[in-house]
């Protein structure tokens, strides 16, 4: 087991410190914080990959900048706050990491942040799918 990056550890600790009901509200905060897609991606919908495992239309795109830092961009409709929240957790938690660090994040991270009861394991699969697809895109980008 490699060490979890600080950003993801902090997010996990923040959720686990809360009662179940408040965990939902924290997820809503994340949903509200999901940034708009950068203009360069808004103009290129072809670059975006749909996460079909999520029932709502969510699209992701990974980027490694010239300094080698990872960024996850995502877009999902306002009426899908849970999906937006999942995307926002990953976008914030993975932002700025190296590719190596991102690929080392445990695939079961979504199951470890205390949302199974508040959100349900089935819905959390959407977040796992997002993480899985982000890693796959990253591997393709590195190849």
């Amino acid at each position, binding site marked *: 087991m490699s060490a979890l990056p600080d950003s993801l550890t902090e997010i996990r600790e923040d959720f686990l410190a809360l009662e179940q009901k408040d965990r939902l509200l924290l997820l*809503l905060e994340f949903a509200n914080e999901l940034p708009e897609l950068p203009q360069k991606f808004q103009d290129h919908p072809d670059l975006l990959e749909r996460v079909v495992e999520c029932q709502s239309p969510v699209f992701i795109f990974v980027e490694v900048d010239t300094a080698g830092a990872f960024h996850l961009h995502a877009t999902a409709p306002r009426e899908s*706050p*849970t999906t937006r929240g999942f995307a926002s957790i990953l976008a914030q938690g993975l932002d700025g990491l190296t590719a190596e660090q991102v690929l080392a994040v445990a695939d079961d991270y979504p199951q470890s942040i205390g949302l199974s009861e508040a959100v349900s394991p089935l*819905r959390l699969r959407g977040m*796992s*799918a997002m993480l*899985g697809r982000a890693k796959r895109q990253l591997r393709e980008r590195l190849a």
Partner: protein
Amino acid sequence: MTVPSDPTQKFAAYAHPSTLVSTEWLAEHHGDAGVVVVESDEDVLLYEVGHIEGSVKIDWHTDLNDKVNRDYIDGAAFAALMSSKGITRDSTVIIYGDKSNWWAAYALWVFTLFGHADVRLLDGGRTKWLAEGREITTIASPVIPSDYPVIPRNDAPIRAFKNDVLAHFGNPLIDVRSEEEYSGARTTMPAYPEEGALRGGHIPTAASVPWARAAATDSTFRTRSELDAIYRTEAGLADGDDVIAYCRIGERSSHTWFVLTHLLGFENVRNYDGSWTEWGNAVAVPIAVGTEPGAAPQR
């Protein structure tokens, strides 16, 4: 103490007009004594984003499903849930939700398993309410816990299990999933996480009628004549038929169950909630692939 029905003209043509209310009617009556408005969505956070004033939230994953067994909650848990939402056995429950009431219909079907007498859907659901610019609030609704009796769940009339489906061949089956799921074209995608059915296709003889065909673009139910054209003329259902509807986990088919039972008046409609996640994984059950319904298996 009966809450009157919505006299909207469109509803009069349905078999059970009192199972729907319009947004206009709800705007006027949501605060009436005896009425409890329930929001039930696919997205577990949507209620928190904003809901109809006074409404309470019921989530299908976290409230209606048993946490251990793959089953619905039992009578004691349902009574506790109702109590926590301020619903009594006499309450008029009006459910609305996202996605053309897909999940609201599912919740209504579960209420029906417990024989709750007066439960209605908001025609057009959350989408229409918002499209009309009607008010929502983020303020949590105060609830006074109620007394709700423990009623044993009665599955038999409206719920089908796998063995019921195996015994059902020769009677109409409706598959309400997408055409790709019906044909079996969609189940696996290499290198992607998979949702969980080992086989693709449909239950032999099932007619394909994707659930959303029953909804108009504004999320309301289609009119009686439009629904008759889809389910009677096209899918071939006839009065007196014993029908089973299914989808992937029984949610979309709850919507179709509502349409067939309450809007078109079929009296023997069951929802097979095990649906494709059970059938597509079960050993030695017959499956048909492609766009044709396929023949009933020899027995």
